[in-house]
């Protein structure tokens, strides 16, 4: 099973790897600046990031070593494991006062909601490739995918982590729309979504979550509170002007006006230090990688590979779009990272593993499904 065919090396996608390394490199330099000077205690974050990258790329290598078709037989046990981790994190968080979403593994804090996103992509890809309906899925056909999405959705919502929970919804919609629904199913689903949304606003959202959304639409009402983050982020990016203030010279980041500048707001630091030119170069590389990923999907040898590649690209794409729009003042602060760029072990590992699967699909694009049998 782990025998690596020689032809696989010939089919290895060096472009994808180069793009990936470029992005991780830029992220690494930016992280060094954003967290400078390092805190006097504990391991500096740039060193931690080194270890995380090491683990991430090891996982990447492992994930290209077997045919992605194997995932079809593993996806449900893995799905179950993630659900258990979410439940554990929920109860651990609850006993610690409800202020945490992670499981402490000693060397890192695992946020199960991050792998849950990737797991949902794999699970939905498996389901839709097993149950192929060409003329559109009916409501009954997507009952199981809805259920598979709702369970982790509710668990993450309870943490409470609105942003990540909504991300699961975005993945579900992206994948389900892609495999095509019946027209009537669309109508019913959008009706239901409206009702659930209204109910959620009234009953489920915590006051601070509502406030964030309200502040977004009217930031002047609270310049020192929730509007503050968005305002400071816009100031950081805007003051970068055309060519930026130079590496390590961003005042917004270094003087700590930017909250969470190495995690969710990491790109603000980049924008401030490298300006419009640097930002566009970064975005060009980043979105070229995503388009390349879509190319992987197009070239996939079968429906499962295509759905996997597409789902992983969408996972990265939507997170990036939401994060960037938040940083640039288009969206409220929702706590979605910029994959590969924001500091955060769980997110980085999840994204790198996803990229491993993408590479896997790419490398095996010429094999026939029957060759496996």
């Amino acid at each position, binding site marked *: 099973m782990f025998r690596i065919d020689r032809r696989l090396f010939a089919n290895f996608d060096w472009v994808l790897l180069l793009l990936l390394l470029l992005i991780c490199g830029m992220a690494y330099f930016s992280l060094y600046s954003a967290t400078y000077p390092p805190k006097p205690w504990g391991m500096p974050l740039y060193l931690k990031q080194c270890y995380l990258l090491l683990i991430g790329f090891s996982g990447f290598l492992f994930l290209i070593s077997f045919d992605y078709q194997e995932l079809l037989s593993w996806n449900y046990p893995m799905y179950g494991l993630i659900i258990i981790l979410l439940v554990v994190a929920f109860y651990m968080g609850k006993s610690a006062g409800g202020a945490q979403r992670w499981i402490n593994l000693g060397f890192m804090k695992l946020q199960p909601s991050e792998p849950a996103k990737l797991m949902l992509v794999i699970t939905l890809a498996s389901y839709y490739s097993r149950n192929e309906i060409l003329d559109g899925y009916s409501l009954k056909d997507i009952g199981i995918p809805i259920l598979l999405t709702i369970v982790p959705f509710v668990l993450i919502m309870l943490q409470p982590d609105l942003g990540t929970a909504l991300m699961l919804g975005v993945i579900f919609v992206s994948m389900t729309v892609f495999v095509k629904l019946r027209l009537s199913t669309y109508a019913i689903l959008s009706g239901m979504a409206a009702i659930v949304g209204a109910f959620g606003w009234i009953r489920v959202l915590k006051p601070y979550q509502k406030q964030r959304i309200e502040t977004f639409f009217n930031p002047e009402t609270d310049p020192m509170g929730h509007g503050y983050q968005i305002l400071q982020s816009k100031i950081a990016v805007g003051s970068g002007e055309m060519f930026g203030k130079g590496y390590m010279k961003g005042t*917004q980041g270094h003087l*700590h006006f930017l909250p969470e500048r190495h995690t969710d707001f990491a790109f603000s630091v980049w924008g401030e230090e490298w300006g419009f030119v640097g930002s566009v170069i970064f975005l060009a590389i980043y979105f070229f990688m995503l388009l390349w990923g879509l190319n992987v999907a197009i070239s996939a040898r079968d*429906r499962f590979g295509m759905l996997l590649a597409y789902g992983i690209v969408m996972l990265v794409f939507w997170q990036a779009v939401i994060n960037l729009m938040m940083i*640039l003042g288009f969206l409220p602060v929702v706590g979605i990272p910029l994959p590969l760029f924001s500091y955060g072990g769980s997110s980085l590992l999840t994204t790198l593993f996803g990229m491993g699967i993408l590479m896997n699909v790419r490398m095996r694009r010429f094999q026939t499904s029957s060759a496996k049998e």
Partner: protein
Amino acid sequence: MVKKIFKEIEEIQERDDEALDILKRRLVVVAVIVMIFTSLIVARLWYLQVNSGEEYKSLAFNNRVRIRQVAAPRGHIVDRNGKEIVTNRPSFNVVLIREDSHDIDDVLKRLAGVLHVDISELWKRIREAAGTPLYIPVVLKEDITWDTLAFLENHNQEFSGIRIEVVPVRVFHYGDLASHIIGYLGIINKKELAEADPEKYTGEDLIGKMGLEKLRENDLRGKKGSNSTEVNARGFEQKMLKSDDPISGKEIRLTLDVDLQQIAEGMMDQEEKSGAVVAMEVKTGRVLVAASAPKIHLDDFTGGISTENWNSLLENPKHPLINKVVQGTYPPGSTYKMVTALAGLATGAITESTVFNCPGHYQFGNRVYMCWKHSGHGAVDLRRAITESCDVYFYQLGQRVGVDVLAEYAHRLGLGEKTGVELEHEKSGLVPTRQWKLKQYKQKWQDGETLSIAIGQGFDLATPMQVNMMTATVANGGKVLLPQVVDSVRDTDGSIVEQFHPKLIRELTGLGRYLALIREGLTGVVNNDHGTAKGARIEGLTVAGKTGTAQVVKLAQYKGLKDENIPYKYRDHAWFTCFAPAEDPEIAITVLVEHGLHGGSESAPIAKAILQKYFEARLQAFAKEKEEKKIKTVPGGVRP
């Protein structure tokens, strides 16, 4: 056969390829969507960085300067002799900057051990702050001890994200002394913030909520200073750019005397009495004692009172939240006889030699009004009527002058209207007239009611402050002086910013000799063997005063019962109001003990104790003189 299978496989593959082709076409659409979003983001970047870049650059530059407000020490409150009643001290609070904290579980676990609190308490504080930006500090524990402070400062590297904040808090040097007068501070609420000067107050500021802390807020509150600093990592200041020192609040010097106030409060508290004690300099109107019992615990209010505490205060039958000095209104009882006497003399209804007969009761219409002394006083003139507090005398006198004339003189002596003392929510009491009753009850005045009014019962209501002011006016010969509790406002260097001089509200001209006559009667109350307040007698000092009983209910079922058998809340209030020395009065003291029954035994001793302290020097000199006289009179001149 084989051919057929191959054909089938081919067909399946063709169908699969067709399905994949459909999906491939969709992927192209997705690629277009990705590119649309990319251009949108690039366009936004262009707008922010190139179009508005300059604007944001200047915003970023201004951002580097962090203006931090420095709290101004609040002004002290001292007594008339400069003894400190309320000052400030630094309180060291432990705060958490969530953004800077790693391993928050671990830090909190160790911190809980150091602070000796339960970790759930700390989590609770953090949860309450959920939703606020992470760079805003969360207060975990207020007012830590020096030992804890030293430990945390020495080990600050091990507590990431934990910082110490210094905040000034009030210190009460005499505990809850004059708690109703001093008042307390609390965090400014929305309404107060809306009314306040936005340059002076911000969201978390403390503001006076009660008493002089509230009334004198503008003096006590200083002017905040500010430090403009360039801040660097972790919010540490890098370079001081500009610094405006805070200006301390001004000192409020009270007219109160803490020694006298302590005596008054101590005696009220000792016997768990509820009521009020007021003492005033009769020649200036300066208040020496203003005590309301029971006191409130000011520390309970610091930083917001708990609901539990608040409810227990509300439900307490002794109403500790009411400042009874100016907010408690009671029938003035026999102390009101000063008004009736003055009205009678001034209108010529009686002279000093007018005599009424007291058989112990007085028949009016078909009702019999009793004198407190059922056996009767016999033939009494004004002096004796006051001294022995003969009700029948004043029934007849009241009837002669009528309710409206009584009201006129009551008003002249300061009853029925606010005294204007600088204390909150002062009540004006009640002085009834015919017109008032018609308006209030739509009923005609009953002449019998005048009889009750004449002895200070019925509709009459007065505050202890009003009765004290009335006593002072009788004592000083007709000057109605504004009672004052603040002597001066001073700067921190001791220079006087504002000095309060005695203020004459009105003078009762041409009544001097009548007041002197009333004073004679009042002197008898204490010094005559038939007087009702012999207990207030002090050797070496002539005290003049008047007891009074304020009827709480007129229920027949309690008549004739022994005192201790009457339920507490139905017992009468006990007044004693006095001045001394009778020859040239300096101080007037009024004591009201709620449900105290007897002014002579319950209220007079408190006044006596205050007098003994106030005239301490004079009484000591007197005792010494007396001792010397004794020695001189020893026969043979042999010294013992």
